[in-house]
């Protein structure tokens, strides 16, 4: 690295000759230099296509064409009066919120379980990581198979246990399809969230927790008044992960329902794909895809700020 200059350092010579600053010392140079690759990468490889995508959303481009016939806001205004778009937007938010709430509840509970000492804990922890290690495209296929209403092992089991009077047509009814999609999201993300929360819990100083126990705080008091507030920054990170994953997710919904039945479970990503790519309506698809961006931006900025603030607070 900087062995050259170092070699010149001599200790307490009679007449000191101080080594001068080299490149390796200059923060004003090092800073930009170290940031440059990331910036260049992001600007060139995300920025350029992103700008093109924005241009697309203002054009009537079709079928892969990058000819930008400017149509102004027409794609957007058409979407705003499109009930299917509204449903997709609602679905996106619904899937995101519900699955995140469930993920966090499960993760906090699971983390508390894993925090306790019991036989087989390491094994349980490894097994919990499995969903996260699975390629989502393939794992979703497994769920397609699990929920296939003709062959569903879930239905079979419920039926044998006598818990199912009728029959569950998982992807055939919008409500059940929503349940299925959220289940897969939760399944996929809660292990990771658990790990994050576990990490957060291991960071809560033991003395604070013990103090709470000594004070006679019950489990829920401890949870809500000690653990959760201390976990907030970590939980924010987990939620942020989750929000980003669910909000931009394409694979799960697409593989599970392809937006069906009757386009009732589309999210913006799948609707954009169906309209823009399959329906060859590129401009409109781009508009759909970009619609969520402002929402995500606001959410992300708020949460990042929150995370940082909480961090400074500790």
């Amino acid at each position: 690295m900087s062995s050259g200059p170092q070699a010149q350092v001599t200790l307490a010579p009679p007449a000191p000759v101080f080594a001068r600053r080299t490149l390796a010392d200059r923060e004003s140079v090092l800073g930009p230099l170290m940031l440059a690759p990331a910036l260049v990468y992001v600007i060139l490889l995300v920025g350029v296509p992103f700008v093109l995508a924005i241009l697309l959303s203002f054009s009537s481009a079709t079928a892969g064409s990058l000819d930008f016939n400017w149509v102004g806001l027409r794609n957007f205004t058409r979407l705003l009066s499109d009930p299917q778009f509204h449903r997709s937007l609602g679905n996106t938010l619904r899937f995101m919120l519900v699955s995140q709430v469930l993920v966090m509840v499960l993760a906090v509970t699971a983390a508390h379980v894993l925090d306790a000492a019991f036989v087989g804990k390491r094994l349980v922890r490894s097994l919990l990581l499995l969903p996260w290690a699975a390629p989502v495209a393939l794992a979703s296929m497994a769920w397609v198979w699990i929920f296939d209403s003709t062959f569903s092992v879930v239905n079979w089991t419920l039926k044998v246990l006598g818990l199912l009077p009728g029959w569950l047509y998982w992807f055939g009814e919008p409500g059940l399809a929503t349940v299925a999609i959220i289940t897969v999201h939760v399944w996929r993300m809660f292990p990771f969230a658990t790990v994050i929360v576990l990490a957060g819990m291991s960071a809560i100083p033991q003395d604070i927790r013990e103090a709470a126990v000594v004070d006679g705080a019950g489990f829920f008091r401890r949870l809500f008044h000690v653990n959760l507030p201390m976990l907030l920054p970590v939980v924010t990170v987990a939620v942020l992960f989750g929000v980003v994953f669910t909000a931009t997710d394409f694979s799960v919904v697409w593989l599970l329902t392809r937006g069906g039945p009757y386009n009732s479970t589309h999210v913006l990503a799948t609707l954009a794909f169906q309209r823009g790519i399959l329906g060859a309506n590129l401009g409109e698809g781009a508009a759909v895809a970009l619609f969520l961006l402002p929402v995500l931006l606001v959410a992300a900025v708020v949460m990042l700020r929150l995370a940082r603030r909480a961090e400074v607070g500790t």
Partner: protein
Amino acid sequence: MSTLTRPPITEEPTALGYVETRGLCKHFGDVRAVDGVDLCVMEGEFVVLLGPSGCGKTTLMRMIAGLERPTAGEIYIAGERVDDDVPPRARGIAMVFQSYALYPHKTAFQNIAFPLEAAQVERSTLRRKVEWAAALFGLERLLDRHPRQLSGGERQRVALARAVVRDPRVFLLDEPLSNLDAKLRAVARFELKQLQRQLGTTTIYVTHDQVEAMGLGDRIAVMDKGKIRQIGTPRDVYDNPADTFVATFLGSPPMNLVEYDERTLVGFRPEHFLPREAFGGEADLVTYRLRVREVEYLGSDRLAYGYLEEERRSDQPVIAAVPITVTLPIAEGEAYEFAVRRRDLRFFDARTGLRKPAPS
């Protein structure tokens, strides 16, 4: 902001200092953390930078270390200018942080050896030196431990050993004792002083604790609001404060300041302010009538809080520290004759706060 322009510095150095700053400034936006500091530290000297938190003492030290870039001014070490273009690593300094900054991923041995590795010291020499430094602080048996396995005192000693091992020109110590408990601190202070005497290394020591400063420093530089208010021997600074800030910052309880006349404040130390009777027949005393509000017994002495029963000074609180040897009764609510020797009075300009001669 003080209206002080340039505080009088007692004992102007005659020779060029070993560490010297000239007109050194550091501004963070509008905040002038260090505002034109001239400091001159002689070779082998132990200088303490003393001041309240936020006074700029740490920033000053960090500039000397090269960790902050001065906004203006010059820094010399061993007669050579270093302020702009010599990185910290090349300045031949050693520094001990308040947190000790031990590398958590390295053992005590590796921590101590780390500066030597930078200098590419040969392996056997390195081992010898580390062992020498460890022996100096009684760390021989802790060398394999990681910092988290060490107690606070042990960590501090590892940090010192690391500072010593490379035989630096200058030690910079940033409140190295503040994380120790009171008992340990006294011992450590003594050891530190001994060590510095023994090694003879020029040392700059930052603290906000006046007891440390008085006990350790060959000279003390009292800082406030980015400026050095006064620099001198502990005794000098204590006895002859250059301004009202120094007068009130040093000493516990601080110097009493009361109005003398329109343009003058008069100051006297609580321990010099005793019941009239304690002085016996001594002449050249100034007497005041003290209305006592509260009395604290501190074992070695009594602190009497009150105010002077004089027309223009009735609103000014005054403290008297009466040694336990003076057995006169002092009751709360009563008024007594108190006195101070005229030679123990110090006069300050009411407007600038600067020391001035006794008004005739």
